[in-house]
């Protein structure tokens, strides 16, 4: 109860604040600096209050305000301007286009609208128009290359495949590192529900895929904990605030917008193959081999007999991999209907996206319906709400090593006519060159996952200005969906030879209630000092359920129903429930619009922590200072300068149910052979349970992310050049992590608070308008990010630990002290070293240090050393460069980006090289080769030394010797330069539209992923088979990326 009294006490303090002065009536016109035309719909707000209006169709406005107040004029795409009323009755304002990044009203945590100049931390706004009509149905992908400090990687070009997003690096060893997503104030679930092992599964969506990019008004990225602290624990990885189109400020007009686009998709980034040598080994034809080390097409046999006993010409099929894929398409249609004025507005939106993927039998269909509105009652109560319904249907096919189409596409001999040969026999079994391998066509037709998400989310907000300076708001939001999946593995499939039908139902539900009390004043104790106090309370509940029914061992071919199964042992259920109660407060002070201080704090009480220790508090402070205003530095060159700094700490709770050790239904074995309790035995069904591999902890504490940030905003030449720069240093401590323990302890890992993770980074956005003459304009935006992530410590005696989620044939995505998060650890080829005289492979002379040690008998690498870092995905830097050229109604945007450095671990890359199908393996194939390295020798005097390797190997032994799937040989440089996006748009001149019902017509063409150059990899390194999540930088035989090209049209009337 003490807390309530504390809250009431704060409230009563608010009532004691000074009362405002007398009102005056003012009017004026807002015009554009570009052409002097009136700007309709400009938002005008009396700073420090909720009072305001918008301009009419000619840019005029009228407003009654206190005589000493300041007005803020803001309009999307234009710089915000603040003006003091000073008893004037007419205030005309010219807004400057193209300086949007410097100073404008932005939506911050908890939906609080703030003048950007007052923020002591970094945010980045993306206008809806930058996401719309971009040949890309996935919102996150559409953001790629456009933001600083944000890393976005798609899983693949598969329709609906998930996309990973991390803001300012990975901050949690084990927890979600995806930012919190907020759509219209609704905490929006962006999970990926993985039915199958992520190493093997199809690629399910992250649920942000349920948002239609065409319906987005604006998107704001809160990058650091300081920005997001009011959202609490879950925003410690940052937050993305999405505002959909609402119809607000439409000047009482109703506007209908229709957007429509059609894109074609082609597979892009297939490796370059050799076409000189066919199926076989050691220069001999072998009809069931996955290798292309057979005889040459020139000089080899003219025909060969396949495993079915048929004679076939022995020749290259240069496009046998490429032709597996088809041309995909994306059709998008959206209708928005919106209208309203400052007191009332409504919006309806209906959209449909239908994507057919490049892999056969893949598609993604999304249908969105949204209804929303807002009204102010006569008694001053403001009520608003939105409800959205989304249906997303995703048809996918499985990937991964071994029994998947994509696991076999990298193993097709160059002489196999994949598209020409049959893939299925009369019994619906796979037909292929090797009976124990499944034909890729068979896989995509008979091992498929279909899913349907039905989702409803919405908000309901009631607020009232109890006093002109005091507002009370209550907001309820809900987000719930079911995801119903059917995974079919027909009889004869690679991983499940007897077949199985899996029916998976997911249900998630999140409810939030927020009470927010806001008090503002323009004059706090002294002239020019503004104050703003927010008190809030959040109640949160999250529910998750999953039921799985697996009907295995099928009998009737083609009957895709669980009832076709005879064994159901892998069926089960799982559910979680978690709750959190949070209290937050924020006090903001501003002095003469050039000095700002913001103090925030939040206390959370979480159900997932031990009850005696489940409450934790965390604060933040942010300062912003605008010297150009403070010292009246306004010059022709330096038009704006702001320096800012912030420190913040955010706590994060645990996942549910980590406190106890539990028992699980026993199972033994892996994909090769396994048993699963209950066992069906002659005596009946026998249950079996054993202790789970995870050791729980009753002493868990919240983990914390502490971040410091300094930044700079500079505007030059009347803000024609703008720079927004930030340096940050983030430390994550007492991480809740399942630390790997030695298997001989009887367990696999234990949950505890461990270690420290540090992220340091620099990011900047440079915007400019190099040319603006005679209606022609060239805008440039460059963003740059460099983040250094480092695992500082784990726990005493533990140097490395596997990241929960997957390890495969000897490689484990891991945390490793002194390394960035997520390095891939495995068996490394030993190298000569000259630092440890007692260690293996020591070379006192130092001349061979770093060279591989070669086995003197075989000429191959010496036996591997376990537990070494093989692959490091951390990029040196990423940068995106956007150029927009506009002339009259014509606009051309070209976005290129680069990811410099980092490595990818690729099964596909190792595959096509070691099996002799990659282009380089066909060059000088008859020539012997020598693996790089040195051979240990014993010198005449008994000391040990090394000599250069001189053991010649055949091309097959050499390329194979570089390493296969789980080896160091599967590591490639992931640097990639990309022409990400080109969009050409033409808006028909208004003069042409005069007599038509249309207010606006624009047509455009756009393309995505048009070109890429990856000097160190055989394909496009920007893939990640694990999808969104903490494991990145793996290409375990997933689907390739695509190139999209299309046309679009937008009509408003």
């Amino acid at each position: 109860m003490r807390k309530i009294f504390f809250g009431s006490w704060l409230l009563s303090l608010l009532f004691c604040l000074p009362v405002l002065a007398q009102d005056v009536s003012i009017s004026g016109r807002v015009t554009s600096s570009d052409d002097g035309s009136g700007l309709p719909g400009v938002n005008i707000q009396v700073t420090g209050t909720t009072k305001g209006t918008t301009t009419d169709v000619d840019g005029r406005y009228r407003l009654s305000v206190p005589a000493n107040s300041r007005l803020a004029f803001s309009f999307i795409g234009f710089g915000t301007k603040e003006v003091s009323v000073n008893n004037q009755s007419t205030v005309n304002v010219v807004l400057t286009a193209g300086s949007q990044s410097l100073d404008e009203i932005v939506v911050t945590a908890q939906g609080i609208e703030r003048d950007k100049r007052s923020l002591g931390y970094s945010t980045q706004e993306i206008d809806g128009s930058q996401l719309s009509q971009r040949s890309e149905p996935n919102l996150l992908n559409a953001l790629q290359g456009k933001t600083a400090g944000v890393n976005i990687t798609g899983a693949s070009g598969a329709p609906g495949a998930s996309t990973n997003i991390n803001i300012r690096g990975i901050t949690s060893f084990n927890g979600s590192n995806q930012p919190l997503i907020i759509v219209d104030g609704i905490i929006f679930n962006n999970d990926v529900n993985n039915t199958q092992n992520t190493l093997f599964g199809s690629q399910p969506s992250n649920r942000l895929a349920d948002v239609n990019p065409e319906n987005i008004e604006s998107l704001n990225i809160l990058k650091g904990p300081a920005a997001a602290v009011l959202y609490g624990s879950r925003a410690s990885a940052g937050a993305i605030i999405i505002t959909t189109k609402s119809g607000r400020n439409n000047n009482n007009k109703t506007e209908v917008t229709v957007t429509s686009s059609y894109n074609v998709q082609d597979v892009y980034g297939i490796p370059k193959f050799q076409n000189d040598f066919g199926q076989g080994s050691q220069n001999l034809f072998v009809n069931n081999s996955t290798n292309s080390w057979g005889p040459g097409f020139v000089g080899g046999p003219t025909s060969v007999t396949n495993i079915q006993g048929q004679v076939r010409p022995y020749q290259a099929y240069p496009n046998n991999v490429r032709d597996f894929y088809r041309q995909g398409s994306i059709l998008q249609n959206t209708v928005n209907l919106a209208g309203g004025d400052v007191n009332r507005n409504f919006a309806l939106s209906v959209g449909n996206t239908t994507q057919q993927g490049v892999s056969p039998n893949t598609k993604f269909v999304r249908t969105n319906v949204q209804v929303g509105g807002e009204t102010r009652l006569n008694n001053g109560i403001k009520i608003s709400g939105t409800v959205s319904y989304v249906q997303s249907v995703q048809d996918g096919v499985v990937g991964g090593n071994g029994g998947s189409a994509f696991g076999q596409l990298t193993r097709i001999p160059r002489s196999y006519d994949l598209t020409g040969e049959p893939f299925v026999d009369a019994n619906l079994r796979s037909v292929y060159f090797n009976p124990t391998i499944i034909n890729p066509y068979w896989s995509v037709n008979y091992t498929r996952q279909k899913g349907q998400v039905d989702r409803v989310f919405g908000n309901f907000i009631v607020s009232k200005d109890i006093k002109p300076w005091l507002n009370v708001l209550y907001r309820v939001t809900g987000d719930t969906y079911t995801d119903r999946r059917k995974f079919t593995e027909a009889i004869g499939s690679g991983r499940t030879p007897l077949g199985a039908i899996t029916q998976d139902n997911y249900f998630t539900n999140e409810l939030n209630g927020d009470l927010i009390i806001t008090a503002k004043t323009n004059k706090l104790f002294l002239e020019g000092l503004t104050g703003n106090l927010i008190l809030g309370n959040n109640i949160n509940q999250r529910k998750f359920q999953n039921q799985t029914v697996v009907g295995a061992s099928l009998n009737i071919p083609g009957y895709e129903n669980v009832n076709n199964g005879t064994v159901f042992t892998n069926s089960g259920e799982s559910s979680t429930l978690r709750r959190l109660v949070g209290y937050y407060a924020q006090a903001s002070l501003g002095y003469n619009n050039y000095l700002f201080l913001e103090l925030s704090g939040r206390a959370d009480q979480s159900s997932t922590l031990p009850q005696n220790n489940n409450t934790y508090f965390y604060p933040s402070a942010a300062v912003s200072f605008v010297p150009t205003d403070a010292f009246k530095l306004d010059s022709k060159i330096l038009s704006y300068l702001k320096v800012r700094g912030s420190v913040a700490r955010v706590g994060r709770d645990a996942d549910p149910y980590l406190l106890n050790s539990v028992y699980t239904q026993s199972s033994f074995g892996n994909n090769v052979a396994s048993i699963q309790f209950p066992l069906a035995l002659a005596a009946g069904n026998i249950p079996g349970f054993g202790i789970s591999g995870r050791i729980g902890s009753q002493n868990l504490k919240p983990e914390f992310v502490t971040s410091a940030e300094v930044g700079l905003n500079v505007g030059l030449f009347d803000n024609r050049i703008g720079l927004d720069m930030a340096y940050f240093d983030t430390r994550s401590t007492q991480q809740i992590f399942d630390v790997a323990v030695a298997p001989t302890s009887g367990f696999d890992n234990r949950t505890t608070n461990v270690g420290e993770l540090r992220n340091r980074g620099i990011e900047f956005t440079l915007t400019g308008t190099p040319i603006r003459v005679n209606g022609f304009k060239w805008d440039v935006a460059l963003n740059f990010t460099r983040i250094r992530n480092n695992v500082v410590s784990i726990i005493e005696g533990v140097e490395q630990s596997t990241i929960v989620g997957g390890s495969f044939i000897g490689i484990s995505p891991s945390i490793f002290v002194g390394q960035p998060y997520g390095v891939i650890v495995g068996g490394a080829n030993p190298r000569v070293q000259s630092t440890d005289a007692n260690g293996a492979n020591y070379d006192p002379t130092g001349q061979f240090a770093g060279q591989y040690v070669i086995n003197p008998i075989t000429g191959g690498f010496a036996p591997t050393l376990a537990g070494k870092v093989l692959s490091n995905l951390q990029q040196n830097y990423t940068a995106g460069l956007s150029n927009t050229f506009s002339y009259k109604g014509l606009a051309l945007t070209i976005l290129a980006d680069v990811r410099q450095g980092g490595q990818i671990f690729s099964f596909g890359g190792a595959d096509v090289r070691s099996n002799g199908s990659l282009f380089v393996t066909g060059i000088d194939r008859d020539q012997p080769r020598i693996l790089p390295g040195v051979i240990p020798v014993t010198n005449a005097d008994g000391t040990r030394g090394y000599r250069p390797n001189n053991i010649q190997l055949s091309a097959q032994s050499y390329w194979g010797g570089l390493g296969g799937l789980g080896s160091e040989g599967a590591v490639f440089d992931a640097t990639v330069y990309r022409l990400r996006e080109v969009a050409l748009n033409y808006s028909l001149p208004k003069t042409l539209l005069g007599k038509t019902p249309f207010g606006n017509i624009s047509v455009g063409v756009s393309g995505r992923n048009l070109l890429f150059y990856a000097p160190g990899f055989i394909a496009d390194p920007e893939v990640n088979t694990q999808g969104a999540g903490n494991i990145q930088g793996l290409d375990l035989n997933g689907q390739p990326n695509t190139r999209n090209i299309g046309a679009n049209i937008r009509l408003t009337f």
Partner: protein
Amino acid sequence: MTINIKKIYLLTPLLLGMGACSKFLDINVTPNNPTAITPNVSLPAVEAAAAFANANELNRFASVVVQHLYGAGGGPAATDIYVTTGEDLNNQWQGELYNGVLIDAQKMIELGDANNGNAKAYSGIGKILKAYGFAVATDCWGDVPYSQALKGEANTQPGIDKQEDIYKGNQAQNIQSLFDLVREGLADLDAPSPVKPGTDDIIYGGDLNKWKLAGNSMLLKFANTISRKEPELARTVINEVLTRNVYIKSNADDMNFRFGTAINSQDPRYTYTILSLFRDDLAMSSRFQGVMQGLSDPRLPVFFTRPGGNFLGFDNGLRATLPSSTTWSRYNAYVIGAGGEGPVRMLTNFQRAFILAESALILGTPGVPQTLYAEGIRASMTLAGIPVAQIDAYVTANALTGTTQERLAQIMTQKYIAFVGNGLEVWNDVRRTNLPRLQLSQNAAGIDGTPQVRLQYTATERTRNPKFPNPGPQTNARVWWDID
């Protein structure tokens, strides 16, 4: 003060949230897993884990090394040319042994001892199976964590015990010998136990007397394993068991684990060789075929199939284009069951007879070698369903003759034949006695071109446990009991 009323109304959600906080937030008990179990659901898992550990990849590995099987592809092909690394077999080390049968047995022992030991029978079975699991671990990997293992959070990086100490015990270091662990288990079986196993005991159906036979026979097996290194100790243990006169004497007493015929319940040897994507990685070894045909042994068609009408095996290490896999000889129903039920023969009557024959011959323990040897053959052939007349003829034709070493070779060869499907036991014997003499595989590679005589510590353990040497002993380093 009307405003205050409104204010309080708006605070209602806050009050609801806080007033009920303790209950509202007291929801962190998982509905998905039990936090406590009873021994009757533990025992099936312990038994299945023991059988699975024996029959899964360790059997694939060992059966190829001892040339029962030929490695045609994948991992078995590498095994066949003696290439085995520390990346291999972690699933066995971790999933099947330490995080499988061993920890499950440990937990079952604790459950049996709880509640004033009202389920001591479970503790007894648990100790026997725990000893079995540790024997598998140390026989394969040599020195392994034992006395410090399975302690969970109390010791997350257990130290390694010497194989010698594991088998013999070491009072100074507080290491209990495997023999004493089994003896303790036998004592538990004799103790009162109000809660007893029934149908949950897949191996013996709750017959505790049979567990006593198995426990004593396990003592014989352990003694046999160390008999060349520690003949005195072996002799003492064998005499102790013979004096007690409680051990497996009939095929009906065999410690067999019988799987089911539905998928997810099947013997891994069946799943691997018949169903899986990797089924063509294994075939019969033509060398084993040669041994059997040299003896005109009627068990060959019982052990291996003849899909093309003839036996088709391959020479170990052979690298060539093979005929269609549909014609290969594979494990027959004797080993894997007609529908995948197995059984896994963990301790058998024929094994006991051959052990006693060997020790009568070498250690001079009671019994006549020829009688015990013939008993072993008869037991095996009876299991294989060979008609009595044929058995008689075979026993007569293969009577023990010659020098001690020649007779030992006959005993070991018969044990080698009888244990098809349990590669681990054969691998132990082959390493221990070098009998039967196996020829090197073609294309022999690996560390130095010699057969594996131990497994390398797994990469996972070496990575997570600094008490392990890295890289550690290679596959050509003999274990303690393997003296030559």
